């Protein structure tokens, strides 16, 4: 039985049983053809169940209707705008490159299309990666559920993935979805358990790996125990599924949903989803069709036209929080008119669009800031870095996968939340330099940016011209982190503090003299590095006080 073999790839036993029951005659029999037209994995896109198509190839970007920023348009912009846009795109994807690498990529003239095609390419050695993540030598493995270790592993993965490739994208899509009201595992709830974190997330990744369409992904999720641990009674689950995915808040339809789901319950014995055989037999009019059983309810919900509109709205709200209602409606309408059938169809259409890359402004999530900075500044992690990141996200009220309704506000900017955000980025990333001599990955001075980030080969300098060298170094630090050069006021600030005039000649003051000399070559190198670090710490501290570190701005 083909349905059997396909479905068991992702379903838990209980969910499979439900489908099997439905397919084997337990369902309504009047909610579609029930046709299984699949011909095997080589032709996944034709496999359907009662009209619900399981698999879709991602739409080629040429079929997107929301205007995409093209390479040629990108190349026509000046260098500074190109850098800003590239930075915005990469930050969005939790990625970054050291400045030189990024500039080289931009210079090739096809930055956007190369990045886009990279997301379709498999580069990651998944077996190596997943073993690496579970290696206690590098990433502390927490056994107690108190730490929600599944969430820590997910956070570690984005740091450990070296290529912005297909696997990275699948993880990013899964992560974004699991931050929203649609797929949040909601580990804050007493009925939700830590395996639900990996349950939701890993199923998303796995289904994306298998080209599952967004309707099928949602259908499976809605029927999962993970979801039932979040919305725990027939009327609650039915109500919330309609509200979350269709944006239908009409209370008068809740009794119908409750009726269809009347034999579904979350048993208090280990918070287990239990589906009885006392299924509804009364035809119900929902979603413009007839629904009888719970499985009918979920299937017809995702098949309905309102589904695409509903989920697109959720994602547009997530990425365009500061746009006006009418601007958002236009973006939603445009995306919906392209007839997306996969999550990538919506998400990639958003983040490569002109509306996003050129016009959008929004607060940047801490994940976007952290992961991109980590790659830009040659960051070295400690074994417990990601447990700490997870804890700090909670303090910022940006906890990952915790909230029952997801991150309704992706980046809370109330004073307390933002104070934690700023403190974390400032003290743990920008002002944290790794001690190259420290080899113990549990030591506090093990983590931080490494000396290679400020190596002399990273920027142009002239030992006979302190002022120009400082200027170049400052610009390098600015462009590396916030994708712009310092302006004259900022240069003046640093120059005044670090350079003095002696005998009509501008020279570095003692703490910042990165060209200090010593007959002992080894001592000289050490001293120069230390002085350069002093400069970097001042400049990075200043950068930590700029809103650009925490915000994505328009690029005009």
């Amino acid at each position: 039985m083909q349905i059997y073999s396909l479905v068991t790839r992702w379903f838990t036993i209980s969910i499979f049983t439900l489908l099997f029951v439905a397919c084997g005659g337990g369902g309504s029999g009047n909610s579609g053809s029930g046709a299984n037209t699949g011909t095997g994995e080589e032709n996944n896109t034709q496999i359907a169940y009662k009209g619900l198509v399981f698999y879709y190839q991602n739409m080629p970007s040429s079929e997107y209707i929301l205007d995409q920023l093209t390479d040629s348009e990108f190349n026509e912009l000046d260098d500074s705008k190109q850098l800003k846009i590239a930075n915005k795109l990469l930050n969005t994807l939790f990625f970054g490159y050291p400045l030189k690498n990024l500039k080289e990529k931009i210079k090739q003239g096809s930055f956007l299309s190369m990045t886009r095609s990279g997301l379709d390419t498999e580069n990651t050695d998944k077996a190596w990666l997943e073993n690496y993540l579970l290696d206690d030598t590098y990433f502390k493995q927490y056994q107690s559920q108190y730490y929600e270790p599944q969430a820590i592993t997910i956070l570690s993965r984005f740091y450990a993935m070296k290529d912005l490739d297909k696997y990275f994208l699948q993880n990013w899509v899964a992560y974004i979805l699991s931050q929203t009201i649609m797929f949040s595992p909601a580990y804050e709830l007493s009925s939700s358990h830590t395996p639900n974190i990996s349950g939701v997330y890993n199923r998303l990744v796995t289904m994306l790996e298998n080209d599952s369409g967004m309707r099928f992904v949602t259908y499976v999720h809605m029927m999962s125990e993970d979801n039932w641990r979040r919305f725990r009674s027939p009327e609650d689950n039915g109500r919330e599924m309609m509200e979350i995915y269709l944006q239908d808040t009409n209370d008068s339809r809740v009794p119908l949903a409750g009726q269809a789901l009347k034999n579904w319950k979350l048993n208090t014995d280990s918070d287990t989803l239990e589906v009885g055989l006392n299924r509804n037999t009364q035809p119900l009019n929902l979603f413009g069709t007839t629904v009888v059983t719970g499985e009918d309810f979920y299937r017809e919900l995702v098949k309905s036209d309102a589904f695409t509109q509903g989920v697109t709205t959720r994602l547009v709200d997530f990425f365009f929080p500061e746009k006006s209602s009418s601007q958002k409606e236009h973006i939603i309408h445009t995306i919906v008119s392209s007839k997306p059938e996969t999550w990538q169809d919506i998400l990639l259409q958003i983040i490569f669009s002109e509306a996003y890359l050129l016009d959008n402004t929004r607060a940047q999530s801490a994940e976007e800031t952290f992961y991109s900075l980590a790659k830009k500044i040659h960051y070295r992690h400690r074994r417990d870095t990601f447990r700490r990141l997870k804890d700090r996200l909670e303090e910022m009220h940006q906890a990952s996968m915790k909230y029952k309704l997801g991150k309704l506000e992706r980046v809370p900017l109330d004073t307390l939340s933002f104070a934690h955000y700023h403190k974390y980025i400032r003290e743990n990333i920008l002002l944290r330099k790794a001690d190259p001599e420290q080899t113990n990955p549990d030591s506090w001075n093990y983590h931080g940016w490494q000396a290679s980030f400020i190596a002399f080969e990273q920027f142009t300098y002239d030992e006979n011209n302190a002022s120009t060298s400082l200027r170049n170094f400052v610009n390098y630090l600015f462009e590396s982190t916030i994708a712009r050069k310092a302006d004259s006021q900022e240069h003046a600030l640093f120059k005044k503090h670090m350079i003095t005039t002696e005998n009509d000649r501008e020279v570095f003051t003692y703490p910042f003299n990165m060209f200090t000399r010593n007959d002992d070559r080894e001592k000289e190198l050490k001293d120069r590095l230390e002085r350069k670090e002093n400069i970097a710490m001042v400049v990075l501290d200043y950068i930590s006080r700029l809103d650009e570190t925490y915000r994505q701005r328009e690029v005009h």
Partner: protein
Amino acid sequence: MQRRDFMKFSLMAGSAALVPSFNYAAALDLSTVDFSSGTYQDNQAQTIIIFLYGGASQLGGNITNIDEIDTHSQNSYKDYFRGITPTAHGCWQEAGGAEMEKLIADGDMTLYRCCYSQVREEKHNKAHGVCVDQNQRGTFDLDGGGVIANIAAILHAKGAINANTLMPFVTMEGESTFYAEGNLPLAGYLKPMGINENFDNPYKRERWTVRRWTYYTEVERDSAPGSYWKPDEEGGFDPAFTGEMDKIAQAHNQSGKIKDAFGRRDNLSSFIGKIQNAQVPDLGDDAYPNHHFSDKIKAAVKLLEKNPDTKIITLGTGGLGGWDDHNDARDYVSRHEVLFRSLRSAMAHLKAIGKDNKINIMVFGEFGRNVNLNAANGWDHGNLQNFFVLGGKDYFTHRGAVGETIVDVTGSLNRLWLKPKPGTYWFEPLSIAATLYKIYGIENPHVLTGGNYPAINALS
């Protein structure tokens, strides 16, 4: 209490208080607001709002209809709950009823049992998001500003608060819709300050990150050799350079919340430093229970005592849990009990510091719940909730339990409701916003709430 009884102590509300409004409030127009600085000064009100996210069942404060409810409920209350005992006023003893009785007996609390929305009933609206928005904006217009943002704008425009008012609004729940800016942008100092129950101070920059020797000029270093980087008490001081960095960075930062947050960071840090060590008097038998939520409300009272400039503090019930009790409603009983045990302590605390006449506490959520105990032993969303008002005795006259309910048996599964008894006093949830406006000196709050009047008269 019947409608006419309520009217005896309602000097201002008039009959319109009983008529729900179907109008939506327009954008805030300050010229339409009648502000009484006398009322504002006389009341010297300070408010703690506890918002019960998820929509708390009203049964904790009202099991007057329990026998009829149980008759029609899908699952039996008496079988499921470990005790459902009515108190003298018909509260649920096991769910904090004993605490409620004490608060009522001491004249410290009014329990309004009929906060009900006819508008939502007709619009089939029992969705969390929309109802939270409406209640926190005090209007059915979801483009309007939040209640507290409006109060901030009005008090500022009328000169009651200004840039020298220290932290007039404080949140312990993040920036909820209460603070949503409407058509009038708010100055940074009118926006809420965030704190937590431990008075953690992330606003403070650690000394090792500021008093770095490389940040000092040679002149500064020479001015206090060996001690310039140490704590203040050892002669330490912040280098001028860090202030210059802040100044130039702020000049580059775009207007908005991040710039505001940076601009207020130093003051917030000092403010927390001042209140961190506030003590709670010995409350004897009324001591706060050892609970995370109790710590929050205790912190809120301490803050209001230490800083009379703070007008309103909002908090959710984080640490206690949400109130969306679709299943396993036994948890609700214990949660509600802790809530009222904490409120009893808070009232004792207010009395001990002599603030029970000035500081009030309001407890409500987005809606109440259906009363059918469903297959999962929980309740679906409902449309009638309790509104608890405590303290503020200079401007509130507490009347015990107000309002009577009836059971609406629809015969449909999961459609068993409590509704206001015909003739009893009831009000739309927007009247809660009107009450808040009223105690802060706004004489015609109905212009802000689509015609809904205060739930309780502010001039008792």
